[in-house]
């Protein structure tokens, strides 16, 4: 059982590498083998639910030396925070593979192989507890995604990819520097060279150095989320990438940034995180409004979905930087929710584009009555995205705002709430623009007859709708597992703040 986490990482990576060397002509073979592997990984990942998360510590820990000379260990484990992110990954990838069935038509083998390697990398990111190991998986995640964005982009392939590359490379190089500095400083203080997150926790950094390290860590993560104003790679990458890649980008890779902030910045630099929470809250608020407002102005459906992602991801930060149990637990919950809902939205964008050959609101015309089941499920997802109370996204949003409202970290929290809730109103505007623009007839012109949803598509949509409704009805089933770990995190942050306050 201990090795289950490693299975989750290396099974997809090895299968991906294996597929590169496969020599079969039919594209369908690669499509279905990709799907089969990702579904298999999903079933293996279910075993993680059997762990004991009550104590808030790490379970399924695997620990052995990797490069002893440099103090680098292979240390992986799962706690309440990473559990649902790993599960989200294993849920989203089969959906991405289902969405590629009719969309990706060229170089299918490479696409499937890279996507599988990407899955392994992302799971590795969520479970690594050693900084160097984390960095390795961070790169294992990034390199396939450069190619997945660039080679299969709709147009401006090079421009789209290079923008992503430059942004993320800047972030991850500074991140690497910071990791090394941390290791060195720890070595100087204790005499042991280690990159083990738990041992590094107690390292004391110089006053200015710790701000720099915090900034280097935060930069890499904030680009990935993306946090306003570091978002300008995102519209290109989201709008121009192929649908399966966008599903992965928004559904999971954006969460690696959020997760990184919570796991590394909050653990290693608790008092600074607390100190700069005002800045992050203001930027998050700006992103929430800016994204929502940009979404209202879009004609391209993919653009609406992309900017709405910017808005919704910034929402998660509101809870994270509230530094209380409500905020942190709901941040984790909302990461899961957003992954599910945004995957659903982009899945539908692909599905409609495939049927109509167009995704501009001004030119698509079709009637929902042609395909009641297709439009019905679509509307469930749209409603979740616009934050309908009773569905999963609203649960997260409500708890995030509740966490922020009751925070002691900043004094102007209510102001942030008042401005952010405007985005909920905006969300209902752009989401209805999108749904009505696609599914209802306009005054001029005739409607397109579209075929009803197919079995394979349903098998992606039904799980999404299940989670949307299930979490809306019973969020405790997730938060009860998350709580212990986030409580532990919050307690340690507040303990650290007290210590640093006493020093002053």
């Amino acid at each position, binding site marked *: 059982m201990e090795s289950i986490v490693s299975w989750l990482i290396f099974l997809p990576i090895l299968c991906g590498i294996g597929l590169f060397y496969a020599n079969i002509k039919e594209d369908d073979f690669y499509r279905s083998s990709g799907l089969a592997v990702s579904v298999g990984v999903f079933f293996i990942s279910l075993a993680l639910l059997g762990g004991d998360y009550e104590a808030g510590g790490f379970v399924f820990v695997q620990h052995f030396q990797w490069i002893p000379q440099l103090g680098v260990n292979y240390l992986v484990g799962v706690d309440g925070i990473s559990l649902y992110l790993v599960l989200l990954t294993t849920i989203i990838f089969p959906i991405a593979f289902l969405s590629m069935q009719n969309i990706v038509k060229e170089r299918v083998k490479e696409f499937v192989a890279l996507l599988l390697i990407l899955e392994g990398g992302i799971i590795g990111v969520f479970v690594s507890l050693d900084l160097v190991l984390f960095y390795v998986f961070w790169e294992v995640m990034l390199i396939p995604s450069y190619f997945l964005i*660039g080679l299969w982009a709709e147009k401006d392939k*090079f421009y789209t990819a*290079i923008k992503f590359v*430059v942004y993320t*490379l800047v972030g991850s190089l500074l991140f690497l*520097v910071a990791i*090394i500095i941390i290791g*060195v*400083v720890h070595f100087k203080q204790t005499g042991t060279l280690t990159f083990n997150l738990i041992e590094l926790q107690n390292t004391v*950094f*110089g006053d*200015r*150095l710790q701000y720099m390290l915090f900034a280097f860590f935060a930069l890499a993560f904030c680009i990935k989320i993306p946090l306003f*104003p570091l978002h*300008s790679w995102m*519209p290109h990458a989201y709008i121009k990438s192929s649908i399966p890649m966008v599903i992965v980008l928004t559904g999971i890779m954006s969460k690696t940034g959020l997760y990184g902030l919570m796991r590394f910045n909050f653990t290693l630099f608790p008092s600074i995180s607390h100190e700069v929470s005002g800045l992050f809250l203001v930027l998050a608020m700006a992103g929430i409004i*800016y994204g929502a*407002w*940009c*979404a*209202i*102005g*879009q004609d391209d459906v993919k653009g609406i979905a992309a*900017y709405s992602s910017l808005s919704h991801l910034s929402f998660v930060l509101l809870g994270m930087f509230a530094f*209380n*149990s*409500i*905020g942190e637990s*709901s941040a984790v919950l909302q990461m899961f929710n957003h992954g599910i809902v945004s995957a659903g939205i982009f899945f539908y964008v692909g599905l409609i584009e495939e049927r109509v050959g167009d995704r501009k609101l001004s030119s698509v015309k079709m009637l*929902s*009555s042609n395909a009641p089941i297709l439009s019905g499920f679509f509307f469930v997802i749209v*409603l979740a995205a616009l934050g*309908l*109370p*009773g569905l999963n996204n*609203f*649960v997260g949003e*409500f*708890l995030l*705002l*509740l*966490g922020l*409202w*009751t925070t002691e970290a900043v004094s102007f929290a209510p102001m942030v709430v*008042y401005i952010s*809730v405007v985005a*909920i*109103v*905006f969300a*209902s*505007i*752009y989401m*209805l623009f999108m749904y009505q623009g696609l599914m*209802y*007839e306009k*005054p001029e012109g005739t409607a397109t007859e579209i075929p009803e949803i197919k079995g394979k598509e349903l098998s992606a949509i039904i799980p999404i709708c299940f989670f949307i409704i299930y979490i809306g009805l*019973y*969020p405790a089933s997730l*938060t009860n597992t998350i*709580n212990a770990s986030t409580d532990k995190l919050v307690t340690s942050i507040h303990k650290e703040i007290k210590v640093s306050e006493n020093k002053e």
Partner: protein
Amino acid sequence: MKELILFTLIAPISGFMILALSGNSFSEKKAGLIGSISVGIAFLATFICLIDLVSGSHVAKTLTLYNWVSVGNFNLNVSILVDTLSIVMLMIINGVGFVIHCYSVEYMHGEKAYSRFFSHMNLFIFSMNVLVLSADFFFLIVGWALVGLSSYFLIGFYTEKHSAVLAARKAFVMNVIGDVGMLVGALILFQYIGSVTYADVFSKAGTAFANDNAALAWACSLLLIGAFAKSAQFPLHTWLPDAMEGPTPVSALIHAATMVTAGVYLIVRCHVIFELVPNVMEWIVFIGILTSFMAATIGLVKYDIKRVIAYSTMSQLGYMFVAAGLGYYALAIFHLMTHAFFKALLFLSAGSVIHGLNGEQDIRKMGGLKEKMPVTFYCFMIGSLALCGFPLFSGFYSKEAIITVSFMSEQGGYCLWFFAIFTAFLTSVYTFRNVFLTFWGEYRGSEKPHESNYIILVPLIILALLAIIGGYWKSGFSEFLSYTVKVIEDPHNTILLIIGVIVPLAGIYTAYQMFVVNTKQTEALRERFRPLFDTLQENYYFDLIYDMVFVKPVKMVGYFLGNIFEPKIVDRLVDLAGEFADFFGQEVTMKQDGKIRSYGLMVFTGAVFVVSSFFLLFHINNF
């Protein structure tokens, strides 16, 4: 026994699921049967619970189902509150709802999306039941939003009609504004009280907010935004007239009898906290009477038979807000009930007229239908008389009492009373304008009018009976409610009573003079006051102003940010920085090609940077 109340939720939601998943494959008969029976079951369950409550001690029961969420100090159970107030609301919702479902079986005959209609009607009944059964503010908001959703579905039922789609969107967005207000209101309550359940909030609010009454006033005002949006009160009222784009049974059920009264329910339910902030209560009265008067004036000039009734709904809701704001909660709920009966009756009779005229809604193209549709005529007449507050009809008992209260209560006075009674006069005028133009005189239309069949007429007759006798149990009703809300005995004043009887009669007489006897003079009058007439016809230009002040700017800024600012300015700046770096990059890397070049460059510089910093670091101290 109390578990039985769950059927009011299970039955309609199952009906919704079955009909929605069938995807229009059911026959009309089957869909109509499933849709109506599910509401019938909900009504039966409510009725049994009512008997149980009456025969027992009237004590409120809370049914806790499961722990919904528990994070930090926020702990919430899914629970259902059964008390006299929620049972009264359930009786109205499911009773009137059942009658309207039966009516719809025939009314919607021949529609392409017949089962979609019933599935959404069932969803509405479910949502409304969630709203009134909730035992805390969170699930109140959930029900609040779900009724908004079903209202959206049903306003936009005719998806091929563009105006209906736009009206649905308008209603939805305006109601989301209300939802957001309530959401923040709930946050404030939690901050001070540490819980969002009614029981905790109402029992602890007095002490928790003792030192910070302004915060409570603010929380209540935010809750009121939700109430105003849902009940179409000024300034969030403009969606209701447009909502008439939906089928007539929808207007009767959602936009007259039940959903729009949710705002009144909210105030009555939360009267404990509202009473702690008297200023807010004064605002409720002010907004109520303002909306009531304003809507009545607009009702005078509209030509669409349904829109006239819609404005009268707004106006009557204003009366309910006045009663609630003055502290007469039982009276507000009593008017809510009688209004549900006679307004549903009016809408359904109007629907019968529209049905008989194959979809014609313009009263200028009606007239003389008295003989052609006798049953519909009598029902419409009963509804109109009840609405005007004609003696012995149900509206008389509730509306007349509100007008008296507006004078006699502490916060009331001449001014409030004058507007209340003047609005009552206007109500009679426009209601009977509707009656006279539709049923008197010569037939002016082109369609061949015919009386509807019994499936439509039987519900009308049931509602007509309720509209007549619905006001007779006033004291028992107040006593029943007194187990849940504070009830003040209505004041009596003979002079006010006499005026209250005479004024509606005067209104009916005026309408008779204007629209039956002296139609020429009415025309002349209209021409003379053309600007005023146009202002009323355009609803005081609210739509125009909102469009200019809110809708257009939001869209324009959205267009600017999304299509000009982001790609042309933000992106360009980033690209410039990139080109700047690239310039140096070319100097360094000499001849390399295309994609690989930049990528390789980055990796190379990065590697140099990393390695050099690694070496440096061993030589620096913590700086």
